[in-house]
């Protein structure tokens, strides 16, 4: 792999950039792999990367029905934070934060992880109680999170309207300074390049259409648009499509896939220094390095695989944004799109073995899995390689829904992204 650096860039400038090699190959699938990962989103690619790098399992294919990174990885609002409530969640997301911090260097690919701080607003007394609970729990868990008064919040984010006279005034905020954003596409590309370099075959435009099981019930391989591919183990990382893929192996899951929308404004000069989230009035906003305001909207109420949603969802998000940042009212929306998010009843992911030997599933990230990408791939690779969960993902089983041992971030009034 040719290493990327400024020097390399300068050198290539002389040859008019004619000599850059491919970031990843476009191989034809082999007949057999040790591990097949279904889904080349960030999580699937990271899983393949860590399988190869940490576990020496390099005979790996990532099979993708479209283009790599084109699922939710390519359409999320890129908020990264780890101040979740339950120790299980905090451990998982904090593991990811640790990896984010060196990811560009590790992958030799600038994923633009930008720790500009994530501020979560409180508008009611209940919000304050919930935020404080998170802050105290996080402190014990070693996860950074702090409380800001409205004035401190405004200092941190000058455009914020902290007037007492708005419908739901800002009563304070929880700030996680190590939180921030990252360049979503680069994360997928960086992992793809890294995995490819370690020998992983990334096969795009090749949908998995079946999961073949042997007599004893264990996994044998996958049927694809390019024929049958034998595999010792199969890891399904298909986000919104997980139910569809897992049904091929006869495994039912507690998932529903909803449209989740996001939008960007026209690009403007720097006007917004951090990430602001308000769960109570439904607004999520940051400014990308390109200059657009990146705004997360809500989910539609019905299951849909359409990657679009209703205008009333955007209306309700933008009205909240305009209350919090009234001078953005004259800004304009440039583009509005949707993704398909797979949500679990407790709003925590499933990272687990399945009843089918050799079949593993990583799903249920719902509206908030981008931030976990490195951590998720890392522990999922461990789960596949060792056929047992990493201690961090051990609680995130499918069985928890049967036993009731939920990791209920939603019930604890936690927030989505």
């Amino acid at each position, binding site marked *: 792999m040719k290493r990327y650096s400024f020097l390399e860039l300068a050198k290539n400038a002389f040859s008019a950039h004619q000599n850059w090699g491919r970031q990843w190959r476009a191989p034809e699938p082999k007949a057999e792999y040790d591990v097949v990962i279904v889904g080349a989103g960030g999580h699937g690619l990271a899983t393949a990367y860590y399988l190869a790098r940490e576990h020496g399992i390099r005979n790996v294919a990532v099979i993708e029905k479209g283009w790599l990174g084109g699922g939710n990885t390519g359409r999320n609002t890129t908020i990264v934070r780890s101040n979740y409530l339950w120790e299980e969640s905090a451990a998982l997301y904090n593991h990811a934060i640790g990896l984010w911090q060196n990811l560009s260097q590790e992958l030799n690919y600038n994923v633009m992880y930008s720790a500009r701080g994530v501020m979560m607003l409180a508008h009611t007394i209940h919000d304050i109680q919930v935020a404080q609970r998170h802050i105290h729990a996080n402190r014990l868990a070693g996860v950074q999170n702090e409380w800001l008064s409205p004035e401190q919040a405004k200092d941190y984010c000058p455009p914020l309207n902290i007037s007492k006279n708005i419908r739901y005034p800002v009563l304070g905020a929880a700030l996680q300074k190590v939180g921030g954003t990252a360049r979503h596409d680069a994360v997928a590309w960086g992992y793809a390049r890294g995995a490819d370099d370690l020998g992983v075959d990334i096969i795009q435009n090749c949908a998995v259409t079946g999961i073949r099981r042997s007599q004893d019930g264990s996994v044998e391989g996958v049927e694809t648009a390019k024929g049958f591919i034998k595999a010792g183990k199969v890891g399904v990382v298909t986000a919104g499509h997980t*139910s569809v893929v897992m049904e091929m192996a006869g495994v039912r899951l507690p998932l529903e896939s909803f449209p989740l929308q996001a939008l960007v404004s026209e690009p403007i000069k720097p006007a917004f220094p951090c990430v602001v989230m308000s769960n109570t009035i439904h607004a999520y906003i940051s400014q990308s390095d390109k200059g657009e305001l990146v705004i997360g909207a809500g989910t539609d109420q019905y299951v849909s695989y359409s990657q679009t949603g209703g205008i009333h969802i955007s209306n309700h998000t933008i009205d909240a944004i305009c209350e919090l940042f009234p001078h953005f009212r004259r800004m304009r929306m440039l583009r509005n799109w949707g993704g398909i998010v797979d949500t679990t009843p407790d709003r925590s992911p499933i990272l687990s073995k399945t009843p089918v030997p050799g079949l593993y599933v990583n799903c249920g990230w719902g509206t908030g899995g981008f931030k976990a990408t490195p951590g998720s791939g890392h522990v999922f690779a461990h789960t596949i390689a060792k056929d047992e969960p990493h201690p961090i993902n051990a609680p995130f089983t499918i069985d928890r829904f049967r036993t009731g041992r939920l990791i209920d971030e939603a019930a604890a009034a936690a927030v989505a992204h």
Partner: protein
Amino acid sequence: MLLIYCPYCEIERAETEFHCGGEAHIARPSDPEKTTEDDWVEFLYMRSNTKGIAAERWRHIHGCGRFFNAVRNTVSDEFLNIYKTGEAKPDLEAFAREAGK
């Protein structure tokens, strides 16, 4: 914003008048005491989450207040059939074949 036909009001109205109640025809076990752990988790949480033709529940919450069922293509979001609560589940396969044409 979907346009949804309410079989009780006999009119199409905007989605904002409705509440989606998720997958249809998941009956609450009639004798919970005797229901196994697995059957209970099926009822509580397991969902087909169908890509394609699915039956789901809607309630005309800001209209007549009635629940009813709808068959919708979750890819195109097109409604294919709407029927009242209590009516039998239609043949989804048949709809799927029709949509596939």
